[in-house]
């Protein structure tokens, strides 16, 4: 079989001839595979796929999303998850199996307008997405500035193994919660820090596909570029093994002494949806400097309990994601936190004051 080079494609472009397995965002016509999206075509373990560069959020099982309560019935809440489908959060998920609509006050737990982090536990062609908040770090978000970006930009915002978002968090003294659906909540002590973080996130969104973005973000945030010259090669082969990667991570951790990330990891994991032609893609956009990730501090697994089993966001180039993927089919993705309290489900959480961004009204009907 011929070797497939990564290339730019638009809908209808022929990617390859031959007996390849079509994966996501491609179709087979005759003996050829064609792209159905604008993006980057590449051959993965599971077949030929296209990493899309545009599009709205389509829910997938196991995605961690940030949603907003828009309504409630007697048995469940309706949650806007920035998609064409409204998600449902059953009241039993919050109150337990002995939930009684007559006894329990749903408004006490989650009121209309509240933001929450949740995981999609069920979704298919016939049903709307079903959410759960019964997990680490899921639940109501008590405070923060929310904003919306394109869901296709989320992997770039996270960066290789969380490098981009860690840069932003460290430089602005903020914490950034990212949902796979493109909704982001920024919290921080100072308004200036939040403002700067939002500015940086917007910049990542707009310039996601340009080269040297991490450098420009660092300039915006006034962060000195600390790329050590000796660490110019990370395993970027798709065949890189996990052990290779973790070895490299250790090197990086030890050599970059400023591994003082007290902020949470953004461990939004890869997942498989059963037999579907979709999968979580963790892409870095083209032209990204492969050396940038090596400069970024890697969080110490001990400070973040679940980081060892929640794969960090990594690009397909790094390959570790490929090898880890199979092992982690049903593993939860979670937004982990080293301090682990803010994003965590707290039933006694103080009634939230979250400044809903004007962005929420962006795509009004009939706009």
């Amino acid at each position, binding site marked *: 079989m011929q070797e497939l080079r990564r*290339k730019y494609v*638009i809908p209808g472009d022929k990617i390859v001839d031959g007996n390849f397995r079509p994966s996501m*965002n491609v179709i087979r016509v005759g003996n050829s595979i064609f792209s159905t999206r604008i993006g980057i075509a590449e051959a993965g373990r599971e077949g030929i796929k296209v990493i899309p560069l545009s599009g709205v959020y389509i829910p997938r099982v196991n995605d961690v999303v940030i949603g907003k309560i828009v309504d409630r019935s007697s048995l469940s809440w309706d949650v806007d998850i920035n998609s064409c489908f409204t998600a449902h959060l059953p009241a039993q998920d919050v109150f337990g199996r002995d939930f009684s609509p007559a006894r329990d006050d749903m408004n006490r737990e989650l009121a209309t307008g509240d933001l929450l982090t949740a995981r999609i536990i069920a979704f298919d062609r016939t049903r709307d997405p079903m959410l759960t908040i019964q997990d680490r770090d899921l639940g109501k978000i008590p405070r923060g500035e929310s904003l919306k970006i394109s869901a296709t930009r989320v992997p770039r915002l996270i960066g290789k193994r969380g490098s981009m978002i860690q840069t932003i968090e460290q430089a602005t003294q903020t914490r950034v919660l990212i949902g796979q659906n493109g909704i982001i909540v920024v919290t921080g002590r100072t308004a200036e820090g939040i403002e700067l973080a939002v500015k940086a996130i917007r910049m990542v969104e707009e310039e996601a596909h340009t080269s040297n973005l991490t450098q420009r973000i660092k300039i915006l945030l006034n962060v000195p570029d600390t790329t050590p010259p000796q660490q110019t090669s990370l395993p970027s082969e798709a065949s890189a093994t996990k052990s290779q990667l973790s070895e490299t991570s250790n090197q990086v951790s030890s050599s970059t002494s400023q591994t003082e990330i007290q902020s949470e990891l953004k461990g939004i994991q890869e997942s498989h949806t059963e037999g579907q032609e979709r999968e979580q893609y963790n892409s870095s956009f*083209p032209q990204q400097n492969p050396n940038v990730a090596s400069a970024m501090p890697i969080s110490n697994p001990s400070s973040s309990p679940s980081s060892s089993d929640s794969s960090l966001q990594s690009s397909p180039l790094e390959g570790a994601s490929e090898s880890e993927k199979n092992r982690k089919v049903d593993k939860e993705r979670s937004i982990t936190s080293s301090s682990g309290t803010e994003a965590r489900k707290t039933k006694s959480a103080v009634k939230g004051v979250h400044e809903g961004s004007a962005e929420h009204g962006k795509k009004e009907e009939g706009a």
Partner: protein
Amino acid sequence: MSQTRSLIDKQGRRTDGRTADQLREVKITVGVVKNADGSAFIEFGKNKIVVAVYGPREVHPKHMAQPDRCVLRCRYHMSPFSTDTRKNPAPSRREVEISKVMREALEPALLLEDYPRAAIDVYVEVLQADGGSRCAGITAASVALADAGINMRDLVSACAAGKVDDKIVLDINDTEDKEGGADMPVAYMPHLDEVTLLQLDGILTKEQFNECFDKAIEGCRMVYEVQKQALMQKYFGSETELKEEAQ
């Protein structure tokens, strides 16, 4: 449709100075409407059309939703100032019809079954009309749908051909449409080599029909190159090849 004056001069030039095989200048800009999920602005000669795509999104009214696929809704509308005499902004019979044929021209290119119970709305707003606006609208709508990240089998390119002074010419303009012999808009998926729209207003012999059809397909291929260029420019800048990252 009777022709009253000669529309092709002795040198073979048409009313706007083009030759028989020449397309008007086509220019497409992607992503002009920030609120939309995908958008495009096309200048096809003197036609100026903006297209905005929203979706996949929730279907309202709910009863329109299809359980197994997405609903595609198209609205072709001419602004009151798009023609020399004011056009009533209410949807006319012609606009309703063009909305329908545009939807049917775009539907075969979309993988609507990927988005069950959802809707995709395509708004085509003609700001300035100069003949062939449905072709220009389909061309821009296809680019806007790709920009919105909707799964598509192929782009749809559209171009008209027609008969002027008993001669088959490519891409007829407003004058040629009104005073010429025939007008044949064609929409075409270049990679799949399939026609999604074929209309004909006028009378052609079998040979003329074949010649006209072939010429329109040729025009569609030229339009496709412009579409491709516009999308590449928006998403990948001036680069055409992906640079492999350093090993």
